């Protein structure tokens, strides 16, 4: 123990102190373990989740902004001149950009020949290098002549050598995949030579250009919005048709991991504060209970500094053990959460950086040392003679008025005595109240998080309101395509919607239904294909939760998520142009909804939108709500008998659970339990100290005839009277924390959580949570109360 500066004598004193207070030592280990686990996870995920993207972005000189321009309103020369716009540090382009739907023209393990694939954003670039968006070749080579194409990594499941045909392009050319490349911000789905890009553009089609920019200030959404505005101002009005920010891409790629950070940070802060409180209580209690021992140590020659070091050491050793365990647990828990982050960039699996493993425990130990130092200094300052002679029974005087009042209440005397006890030691009672409040606030926060996650889990998928789905077969390929469809089974005929409608209406037990068709089209402002879900019939009863605006109530309207709005740089009320094989139609965004289907990037509209694009608008799927009390098995059997002749099939609607939310739930549950356990142990510790301080009085009361049950009642009452108000006061804190953290979780994944998913606290629940503090207090007090009940009266009477 020479580290403590006192040689072996001091070391023995420290070890003896730790050994003598096993419960307190366990509390200190557990509290630091919990705090360090949550803090390592929160800070580790925050840093580690972004590291692979940031590394790749720096290496590729990624584009801060990918902008699309209408070639009918701005010339290539004008666009090239935007590189000189104020704030722009580098630019690339203009590149010709177009949306094309390919069809496989060769066979591979993944795809047969003749399969219609989603539309691609194809960009004409002479090479992948450049000052901005240095596209990295993963395999193969860059396109150097017409007939060659490079596809984006993690886009199409094709390899060099595969052939793709573009039926809607002039001459329906077939091109050979010569390379697979990666753009960190996904500036295109495929690249061809500039000449090939021009040749692929249909005659009469308005040209679209892509420009890639890096800016001097691009760290925040606001800065990028200003940069975008500067670019928009540098070109003719209306020329800038869409843009994508690297922040949005980074957010999408790290969303699942970043969603953990806000609540883990909250638990980390709660844990650290509770650690400081509990360690302060423990060391303060140890000093208070060992006043005489300190006097003896000093009389034996211990200096004040050695006494201080001995008490700080008694806190630091268990805290160091808790930190080490928390470090291991935090890193282990991070593994599944960070599992996919590194792989997305072909790097090693991401892990928590070493510096976080060093800094977080060091900070926790510094906090612990600080918390222990205050009472330890008090111990160091104690005068030797006073320390030896002073007992530990609280001095009379405090709380007398309350005792007098409680003695007159029409309550059993044990209850009256218990009610008065907290007022005799207000400082200790305040620490008990703080421990209870931390626990109750944590429970409130944790329960709220679990309810929010539950609401998100159940509301995140589209069509989850129906109990039955009817698959009508077929896919949503454009008219005239081969009989093989990407969206459906090969050659699957599509059921006649009228026949399906009729069967559903005729089926006893059907309450209401609607149909959906799906397609992939190009949407202005979005790189790559956008999934469109088109509704036929009234789907308002099954609409996703709205964040703002309203649900679809007519043609030409669309509903999208916050993530889509950010990605496209638009807002509710704006218009999105949808393009399919040269045909265009516009939809107005009438609502912002919350759902995670299709990574939250699907566009919801009416089937009339698909028809306007020349796409098959027949529903491939129906969602059905049955009447209350309907036997689902019988319903399905009967309905399938009617649907079989028309080529459709009904089945129960099952929604998959999100592994991310399940992991979050597990973490929330574990951290809540750990924090509540620490809070309960903090209460236990103060009650142990208090009961030991009062052991002589307890002996007197037992000698006067206080029964064990009455002793227990007295101790439990003394804590309950603190726990009830502390718990009730903590509930609003927990609710406020939940209201602060849950929107941040949504923001971390680029989503706005619907108000009902955040407003999860109802009056009965709040009342129950209000009793949480009481429960924590009583649970924490039961052990010392039992000890008080069993305490031998004769030895209690002999106590100082």
């Amino acid at each position, binding site marked *: 123990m020479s580290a403590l500066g006192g040689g072996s004598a001091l070391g023995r004193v420290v070890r003896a102190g730790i050994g003598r207070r096993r419960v307190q030592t366990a509390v200190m280990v557990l509290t630091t373990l919990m705090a360090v686990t949550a803090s390592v996870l929160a800070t580790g995920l925050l840093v580690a989740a972004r590291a692979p993207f940031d590394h790749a972005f720096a290496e590729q000189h990624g584009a801060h902004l990918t902008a699309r321009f209408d070639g009918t309103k701005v010339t290539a020369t004008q666009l090239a001149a935007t590189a000189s716009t104020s704030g722009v540090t580098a630019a690339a382009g203009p590149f010709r950009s177009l949306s094309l739907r390919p069809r496989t023209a060769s066979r591979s393990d993944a795809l047969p020949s003749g399969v219609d694939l989603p539309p691609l954003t194809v960009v004409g670039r002479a090479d992948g290098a450049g000052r901005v968006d240095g596209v990295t070749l993963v395999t193969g080579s860059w396109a150097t002549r017409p007939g060659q194409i490079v596809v984006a990594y993690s886009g199409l499941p094709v390899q060099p050598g595969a052939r793709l045909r573009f039926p809607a392009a002039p001459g329906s050319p077939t091109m050979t995949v010569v390379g697979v490349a990666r753009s960190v911000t996904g500036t295109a789905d495929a690249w061809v030579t500039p000449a090939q890009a021009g040749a692929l553009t249909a005659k009469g089609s308005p040209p679209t250009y892509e420009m890639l920019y890096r800016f001097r200030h691009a760290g925040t959404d606001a800065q990028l919005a200003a940069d975008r505005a500067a670019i928009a101002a540098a070109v003719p009005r209306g020329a800038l048709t869409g843009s994508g920010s690297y922040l949005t891409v980074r957010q999408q790629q790290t969303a699942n991991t970043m969603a953990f950070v806000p609540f883990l940070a909250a638990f980390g802060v709660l844990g650290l504060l509770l650690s400081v409180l509990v360690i302060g209580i423990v060391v303060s209690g140890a000093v208070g209970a060992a006043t005489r021992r300190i006097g003896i140590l000093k009389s034996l020659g211990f200096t004040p500094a050695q006494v201080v070091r001995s008490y700080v050491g008694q806190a630091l050793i268990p805290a160091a053990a808790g930190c080490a365990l928390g470090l291991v647990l935090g890193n282990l828990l991070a593994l599944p959460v960070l599992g996919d982050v590194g792989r997305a960039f072909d790097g090693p699996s991401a892990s928590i950086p070493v510096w976080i493993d060093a800094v977080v425990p060091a900070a926790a130990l510094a906090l612990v040392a600080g918390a222990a130092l205050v009472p330890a200094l008090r111990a160091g300052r104690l005068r030797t003679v006073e320390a030896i002679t002073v007992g530990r029974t609280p001095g*009379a*005087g*405090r*709380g*007398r008025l309350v*005792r*007098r009042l409680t*003695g007159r209440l*029409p309550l*059993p*005397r*044990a209850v*009256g005595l218990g009610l*008065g006890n907290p007022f*005799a030691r207000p400082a200790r009672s305040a620490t008990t109240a703080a421990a209870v409040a931390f626990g109750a606030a944590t429970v409130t926060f944790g329960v709220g998080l679990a309810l929010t996650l539950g609401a998100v889990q159940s509301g995140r998928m589209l069509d989850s309101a129906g109990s039955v789905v009817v698959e009508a077969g077929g896919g949503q390929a454009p008219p005239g395509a081969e009989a093989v469809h990407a969206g459906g089974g090969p050659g699957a005929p599509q059921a006649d919607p009228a026949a399906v409608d009729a069967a559903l209406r005729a089926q006893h037990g059907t309450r209401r239904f609607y149909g959906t068709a799906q397609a992939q089209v190009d949407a202005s402002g979005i790189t790559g294909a956008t999934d469109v879900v088109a509704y036929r019939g009234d789907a308002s009863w099954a609409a996703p939760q709205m964040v703002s605006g309203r649900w679809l109530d007519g043609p030409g309207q669309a509903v999208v998520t916050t993530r889509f709005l950010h990605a496209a740089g638009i807002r509710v009320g704006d218009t999105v142009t949808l393009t399919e094989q040269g045909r265009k139609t516009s939809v107005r965004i009438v609502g912002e909804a919350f759902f995670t289907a299709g990574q939250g990037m699907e566009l919801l509209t009416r089937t009339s939108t698909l028809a306007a694009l020349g796409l098959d608008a027949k529903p491939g799927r129906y969602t059905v709500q049955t009447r209350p009390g309907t036997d689902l098995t019988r319903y399905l059997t009967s309905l399938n008998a009617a649907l079989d002749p028309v080529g459709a099939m009904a089945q129960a609607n099952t929604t998959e659970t999100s592994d991310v939310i399940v992991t979050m739930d597990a973490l929330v549950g574990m951290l809540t339990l750990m924090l509540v356990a620490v809070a309960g142990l903090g209460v236990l510790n103060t009650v142990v100290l208090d009961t030991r301080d009062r052991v*002589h*009085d307890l*002996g*007197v*009361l*037992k*000698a*006067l*005839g*206080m*029964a*064990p*049950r*009455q002793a227990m009642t007295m101790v439990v009452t003394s804590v309950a009277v603190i726990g009830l108000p502390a718990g009730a006061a903590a509930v609003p804190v927990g609710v406020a924390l939940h209201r602060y953290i849950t929107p941040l979780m949504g923001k971390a994944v680029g989503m706005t959580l619907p108000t009902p998913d955040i407003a999860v606290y109802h009056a009965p629940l709040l009342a129950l949570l209000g009793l949480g503090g009481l429960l924590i207090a009583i649970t924490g007090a039961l052990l010392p109360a039992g000890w008080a*009940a*069993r305490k*031998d*009266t*004769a030895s209690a*009477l002999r106590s100082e």
Partner: protein
Amino acid sequence: MAATEPVIEIREVTRTYGEGPPALADVTLSVRAGEAVAVLGPSGSGKSTLLNLVAGLDRPTAGGVTVDGVRVDGLSEAGSARYRRAKVGMVFQFFNLLDDLTVTDNVLLPAQLAGLPRAEARRRAAGLLEHLRVDRHAGAYPGTLSGGERQRVAVARALMNRPALLLADEPTGALDTASGEDVRKLLAELNAEGQTIILVTHDRVLAESCTTRTVELVDGRIVRDTEHATAVAR
């Protein structure tokens, strides 16, 4: 209860702690109702152990203790508590009053723990404080009283539930001479009123002045058991 009936029957009681010599060894003692018995002996002779066994605060390793018809050594913790409420009043060397309760509240405690109706308890406490001449301190806190007054309050508290037996452990040990004399007289008066008393003390003068019988313990064994007249009687 007839005057000659034993209120305490201690039969062949042995109490050992761990591997050491017995604190009490094969002690047999009988105390009649109305007697005032002083237990004398040097430190470590077993006086406090004997008192604890009679009070139900400790259990014998062997033998039996019966007080006022209750077999004390077989009681559970809760049973012991009920027994002390009903049968025993205790007075300690250092008073053991609760400093944050007033004199009245201290005296009320045994009755409140026993569930005596509030009005009856208050009436009884007032009567006792008056009888023991500390009624003017009823609303005061023990810390403001002299040692003798505090011990009077402690005696009032001990008598609150009208116990069959008053156990006093060195009741004058922490008092000055005048206060000690005051307490001695009080005990003698109580005994004269019929209260059975067991008094544990080092002080032979106190023992002989306020008790009717002296039992001497040495190394856990009774070495002498003599009856005598009290100072009051004398």
